[in-house]
């Protein structure tokens, strides 16, 4: 079922207005064939609108959408050959599972015997063989979503579009389905665009994450790149738990407002004297009663103000550097109690300079 060609999907300066509201404000996007790309952002950021425009359910106000070298934004929905999976599954309740999965094939002049074969294969891929005769209401939410996936991939679409497909499932089912989704995508090598507001899904599944806010692209890149090197305040705050510390670049680090000099490995070419924010991820700060000496690291005293016990780890609110820092550390035996005097180790490699716009 695999398809492999170069750049599968391309958006060129796509703009979408809904009346007065500009939902998508000029987005350029290139998606490689066979890759898994996630559009990540809070609700209302335009990610679903982009997906719907690719699917043909919305028409862009301006801009171009290309799929496999063919401009599609004027091609009617039913001729686009895309697989779309909805958050609420959207299985046809009055049709059997077989008829649901076979639905797209019936409009593609596939002979009957082959329809049967391909439906069986698709159900095999989503690991639900033998449910052909049942109706959607007789399956659980997770199973229905697998059927929706089977229905979308069985037509061998050029692109698989997933609109928050996991968010209707309960938490533990969702994680299982996430692994499953990744496996299926890899197995079929199908170009996939995934829309979600869940950063864990985005980081776990994607080859490329596109963080969006307010109708614009904030940053795109490999998950670890976006996570470790946020390019904007929005991205830093949206992904994970980050501390943002205002300061000024010096020749040997960043001078914070309380006078502490924070080590910095990469000033990103910003000149000395520039006012910046330093992004410091909560889990990169290490708390201990004492630290062995280390090069390129700063150790400062702090006091635990509050903690949020999470079993595997604890989230501390630590008073240090003249502010309150969030620190997430794994728990070995017992967490530090409230009021504990601790030492914080901050490494130069974990401090990311963020220029102010």
């Amino acid at each position: 079922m695999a398809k492999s060609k170069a750049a599968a999907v391309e958006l060129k300066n796509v703009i979408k207005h809904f009346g007065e509201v500009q939902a998508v404000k000029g987005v350029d996007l290139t998606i490689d064939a066979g890759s898994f790309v996630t559009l990540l952002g809070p609700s209302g950021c335009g990610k679903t609108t982009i997906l719907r425009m690719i699917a043909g359910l919305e028409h862009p106000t301006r801009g171009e959408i290309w799929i496999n070298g063919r401009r599609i934004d004027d091609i009617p929905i039913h001729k686009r050959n895309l697989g779309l999976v909805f958050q609420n599954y959207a299985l046809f309740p009055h049709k059997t599972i077989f008829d649901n999965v076979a639905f797209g094939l019936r409009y593609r002049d596939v002979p009957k015997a082959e329809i049967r074969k391909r439906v069986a294969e698709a159900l095999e891929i989503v690991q639900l063989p033998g449910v052909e005769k049942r109706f959607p209401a007789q399956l659980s939410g997770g199973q229905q979503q697998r059927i929706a996936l089977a229905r979308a991939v069985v037509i061998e679409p050029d692109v698989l579009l997933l609109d928050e497909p996991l968010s209707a499932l309960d938490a533990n089912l969702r994680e299982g389905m996430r692994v499953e989704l990744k496996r299926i995508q890899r197995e079929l090598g199908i170009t996939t665009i995934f829309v979600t507001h869940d950063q864990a899904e985005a980081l776990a599944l994607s080859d490329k994450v596109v963080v969006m806010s307010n109708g614009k692209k904030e940053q795109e890149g490999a998950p670890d790149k976006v996570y470790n090197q946020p390019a904007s305040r929005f991205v830093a705050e949206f992904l994970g738990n980050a501390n943002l510390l205002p300061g000024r670049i010096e020749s040997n680090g960043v001078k914070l407002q309380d006078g502490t000099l924070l080590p910095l490995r990469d000033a990103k070419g910003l000149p000395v004297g520039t006012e910046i924010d330093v992004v410091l991820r909560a889990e990169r700060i290490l708390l201990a009663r004492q630290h062995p000496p280390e090069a390129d690291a700063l150790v400062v005293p702090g006091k635990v103000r509050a903690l949020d016990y999470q079993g595997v780890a604890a989230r501390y609110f630590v008073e240090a550097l003249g502010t309150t820092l969030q620190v997430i550390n794994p728990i070995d035996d017992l967490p530090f109690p409230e009021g504990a005097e601790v030492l914080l180790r901050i490494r130069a490699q974990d401090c990311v300079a963020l220029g102010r716009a």
Partner: protein
Amino acid sequence: MRDEGFDARPWVLLAPALLALLLLMVIPMAIIFVFSFYEYVDVAVDRPAFQFENWLWFFQDGFYHYAIWQTLRISAITMLVCALLGYVPAYFIANTTYRHKWLLMLLLILPFWVSFIIRQLSWVHVLGSQGIVNAALLWLGVIDAPVRLLYNEATVVMGLVHFLLPFMVLNIYVSLESIDRNLVSAARTLGCTGWQAFCQVTLPLSLPGLAAGSLLCFVLAGGSYVTPLILGGPDDFLFGNLIYDTIMLELNWPMGATLSVVLLALLGSLVAIYGRFMGLSRLYKSLN
């Protein structure tokens, strides 16, 4: 301590409704049923008895059978016209992005604010010999003398459709509203044209509403007698008109009671068949 075995509260709460039903429906209908066995002596005179003369008369007289056939036929035509004419506005109201949807619903319900009789009679001003259609045709010189447009089967059906269409539209609308929009989108992305998606998804999923509306239209048309009285000719009677004539003109109450029971059984069995296949709960839902 509360009695665990029997909880009287639901029955206490139901009592007023049950009592009203008993007094206003069950008992009067039982009386009508008993009346059907009374003996007809002369005009407006009858004698309590238990005999089957009325029933034999009904089963033997072909005129009554013809009346049943005609009632079913006109009801069926009315139902079909309502279904065809009702689907379009229901679909439009369900799918419009117009902000003031309530206004469209209001337009639909507005006719109910005018008396049913007035609404039926208003057609005389439209299609009668002095009506606007004839006046307009005369003025345009298309005709020399008024054409007879009223008092035929078509005008009876038209009057019934006029009265029943909102019931059909509301029922279809309710079931269209409950269809997940993503289903049509899904069908479209899988390769359906808009029309194919309608046939494959929207239409089948709206069938329960269409069926409920059809049942209502059929039963209400089958039980009506005012519309044929006002808009029909001498031959365009429904079964209800026979009952009316038997009781009000012939003053033959036992026979009228017999015919009433027949009509009740006829339309009641249709509701029962519908309930068997579709379930009546949907009917209540759309009537709310």
